[in-house]
């Protein structure tokens, strides 16, 4: 599909950009969960997403691990 940027109000265009980002983030989380569930190592997930193992683990690890003791005490 051709996107006629000139015909779209920037306010609507930016909303589309945010919605695409939210959708992409959600899909990434779901596929990471699925890959880990089927035994993919972090390094392979990172490679598939074209980022380092450290980057993907930093982004998704905490969600899967739950809060650390330090985070828990900060909210206590």
């Amino acid at each position, binding site marked *: *599909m051709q*996107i006629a940027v000139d015909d*779209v109000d920037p*306010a*609507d*265009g*930016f*909303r*589309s950009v*945010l*919605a*695409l980002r*939210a*959708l992409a*983030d*959600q899909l990434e*989380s779901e596929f990471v969960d699925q890959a880990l569930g089927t035994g993919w190592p972090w390094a392979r997930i990172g490679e598939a997403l074209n980022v380092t193992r450290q980057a993907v683990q930093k*982004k*998704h690890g*905490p*969600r899967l*691990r*739950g*809060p650390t003791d330090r*985070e*828990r005490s900060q*909210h206590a």
Partner: protein
Amino acid sequence: MPERFARGTREKVRRAAELAEAENASMVEVEHLLTALVDPITDLLGQRLETAGLSAPAIRAARDREFHSALALVGVDTERPSPSAAPRQRRGRTTSFGLSAKLALERTLSIAAESGQRRITTTHLATAIIRADVGIMPRLLDELGTNGNDLEQLLLGSQ
């Protein structure tokens, strides 16, 4: 300058954080503040908003429609419900306010100051929320069959 948030207003801000947390959002956003005004309904303002079609389920459905139309504009067709702007990566409590909510709270302070009232009321908060002229809010109000100007007229009568 108004001196402080009225208890009801503070309660709405706290409720917005609770709503964000319940849907796994990492940040409290302006749509959570809007929803908090009517979920639960605790004052005349909430009643008026609900009568105008802004019930909590209606806002949720409008958020999904707004999400779908924003994606359709760039050729993406999905049935997925609108995800939270930034899915939470960490378990625990949602405590931080996203930019959209921060700006709404900033506007709340100036609207309250202009009004000359001593307390920052839920009407000041609601006015600040619906005055956002970019971002999700204008499109969301459109999906709800209204707009900022009409709602402001409605709010004038609920002080």
